[in-house]
């Protein structure tokens, strides 16, 4: 079940996209999403599609792998689409029973579908080409400014990376505990919601106990290795901008400009009858 979720997974590779500084990728994703919503028009979607196609090709991550991430939110997208389709007021173009589809609704649906899909695909590319560690590093450095207003950026980043390291371990552990309790006749599958919730106790208690034990061990191990917060710490892999990163920033600026121009001055219309 959990294997289907590709968001947050890393696809090992050595492409130019993989090599980019995580801060660039974070910024790029942000720019991509913001422009998608701020400058949404037919022209700008075409531009976004081209940009996305180029990035995917460069990243050498198989398209099928990226699209798998869409499966998880497919239901959400369908619901959003239905709401938009049927509940937007405007020029009615066709009508079933009490439901009516308006030109505006259709337009909205198409826009929304584009935006959501691109949002997921765009952020998937970032997470697929960036290791969780790089990502936390990128966030830590990128958000360093917030330190000034007493946001513990280093600590939050450290917690995130530890969480990422322990998620697979705890998932294994959950599986093991469930099996062990099943061996004692525990039944996690049948019964009503209350029975199911009760059945979880024999799994949750050991899991929490184990998580606390691990946390305690880890805290000791970190202390023993001289960890005392972010102050005075150096970095083994400091983030350093290379030429390709600066180039990427320039490309990003150009991209924003193009998106803006397409949205503001190129009036392409969706071929929907009755749309002004």
């Amino acid at each position, binding site marked *: 079940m959990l294997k289907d979720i590709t968001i947050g997974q890393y696809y090992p590779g050595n492409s130019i996209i993989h090599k980019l500084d995580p801060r660039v990728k974070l910024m790029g994703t942000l720019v991509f999403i913001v422009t998608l919503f701020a400058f949404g028009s037919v022209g700008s979607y075409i531009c976004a599609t081209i940009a996305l196609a180029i990035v995917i090709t460069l990243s050498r991550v198989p398209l099928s792998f990226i699209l798998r991430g869409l499966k998880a939110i497919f239901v959400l997208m369908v619901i959003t689409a239905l709401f938009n389709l049927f509940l937007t007021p405007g020029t009615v173009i066709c009508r079933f029973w009490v439901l009516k589809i308006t030109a505006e609704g259709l337009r909205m649906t198409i826009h929304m579908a584009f935006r959501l899909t691109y949002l997921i695909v765009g952020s998937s590319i970032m997470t697929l080409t960036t*290791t969780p560690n790089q990502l936390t590093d990128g966030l830590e450095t990128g958000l360093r400014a917030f330190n000034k207003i007493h946001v513990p950026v280093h600590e939050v980043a450290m917690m995130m990376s530890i969480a990422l390291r322990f998620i697979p*371990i705890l998932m294994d552990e959950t599986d093991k505990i469930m099996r062990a309790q099943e*061996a004692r*006749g525990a039944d996690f599958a049948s019964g009503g919601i209350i029975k199911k919730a009760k059945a979880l*106790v024999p799994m949750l208690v050991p899991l929490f106990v184990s998580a606390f034990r691990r946390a305690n061990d*880890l805290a000791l191990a*970190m202390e023993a290795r001289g960890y005392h917060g972010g102050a005075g710490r150096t970095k083994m*892999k400091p983030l350093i901008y290379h030429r390709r990163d600066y180039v990427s920033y320039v490309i990003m600026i150009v991209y924003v400009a193009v998106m803006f121009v397409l949205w503001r001055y190129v009036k392409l219309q969706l071929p929907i009858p009755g749309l002004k």
Partner: protein
Amino acid sequence: MKKTAQKTMKNIIEGHGLSFLYQHFDEDGKVDFAQTALDGVDLEVEPGQFIAILGHNGSGKSTLARQLNALLLPSEGTLYVDGYDTRDESNLWNIRQSAGMVFQNPDNQIIASVVEEDVGFGPENMGIPTEDIWVRVEKALRSVGMWKMRSSSPNRLSGGQKQRVAIAGVIAMKPKCIVLDEPTAMLDPGGRAEVIRTVHELNRTEGVTVILITHYMEEVVDADRVIVMDQGKVVLTGTPKEIFSQVELLRKHRLDVPQVTLLAYELKQKGLDLPDGILSPEELLQNLDTLCGQRKQCDTETALQDTAQAADETARVVHKELRKSHTDEGRTEQIRIEHLNYIYDPGTAYERTALDDISLTIHNGEFIGIIGHTGSGKSTLIQHLNGLNRASSGRLLFSGEDIYSEGYPMRALRFKVGLVFQYPEHQLFESDVLKDVCFGPKNQGLSEEEALARAREAMRSVGLDESFEKKSPFDLSGGQKRRAAIAGILAMDPEVLVLDEPTAGLDPKGRDEILDLLKSLHEERNITIILVSHSMEDVANYVSRIIVMDEGRILYDDVPEKVFIHVKELESVGLAAPRVTYIMDALRRDSWDVDASVTTIAQARDEILRALGR
């Protein structure tokens, strides 16, 4: 780091009258629980020494280890590490850099998601410049032989490899001393050997002082000095030879001696003139040879004995045949597995054959050992026996019924085949022990009274009396927890009891107690017992049939004597024969007339005595 009050001392570690009190405070700040973990310990370690600390679970050795790294501070007494007083807080980071620490659980001490980044964690904390971190990380990883794996995820490493990474993480901080707190307790024999070899090499080549805490006696024989702890006190200290000369005393402290030493001790008890504290097979061999320097003179006697011996030989063969037939006949078939295959994640990129055409029959009342290195498929196999895993193909019959047939009561099978997982105490969850043990019987659908009766009986049979019933399972000691967990399975009154490494992490006495418990369950209740183990000695001493697994296949399935003859083959799949078998093999190659297929100390003792004509 700034230099603070550092005394110049000859010893890297010097502690006097160290005491430590574990205290627990209630809401009003009063002490509601206190336990002395260290009691007046004196400790002096010279630079470059290899010190081993032995002691049973709860003897205070881990508390002592944590003092050395200033993770805990002495309640009384003084401790200087590399000349720094541990009670002076300004010394803290200097001490942690001087005395690095490796812990027991390989997973819980690796912080980063990439090997090299984890090794760099310590230097990062010390504020070392980036380029120097890389130099240190490379050197550290090379010194433990893990440089090739530098960009792997720790989750993909074996236990032994993870511990080597943890050691590298400490080495990268350039400590003068490494404290290892039971670093091998959770590893398989291969991993244990890896770690101990690495530690010895660091001690030899880099001159790092090593303090190794363990309860595997074999790991201690090469130490410069051994310290034995019990109840927070140092009870014995000396060279390994001196320490292991005192077999009885060690046993009193819930410890053990290496197998060779034990064999020599047993022989001595029988009147052979052997020195105390023999630590290696060579030493034993040499001593036995000098003992029988008269052997040449014995020759004539030997000739006389030959006829007697021939008779003996036939007797032994007959005995073995008896043992064999004992397992095969006169017993009803309980579990039959036919051409069973199991494939993990079929149809995905992770597809892997975990079990490959397994066929075997288990009879009522057998005591079987399953051995195989980590990942050989033994855990997967035993989870088929109670239906937790469903075979990809093949059949599994329990009492003649196909468990994969339509409508087979799979849940009922769980109660007939009780499966005790590895570290079963991690599955305890109830507020008191009795309730926890009742969990299984209640799931069986028994009434409250019946369940309680079953639970009480199970608790008695694992040696937990009434006083434990209302205790929280989390307040028990390690060995007691394990027994409570086993009681939880026994209370379901299973016909077959399967245990996955039930002795992992226990001290020698705790290990023997669990194994003896299994033996008595087997004898008194006539339960079929299937024991998965890493320890060849445990298996050889207790079981009557061994199944050897490798890469999802059954390699051997026979009585211990016949399995352990294949020493070379076993070694090639990461296993070994019991240590006595090696000793007997060495004797045989030294032209002694002994049976090399001997697998237990008692058999070996008798064989040697026989060969000596006693």
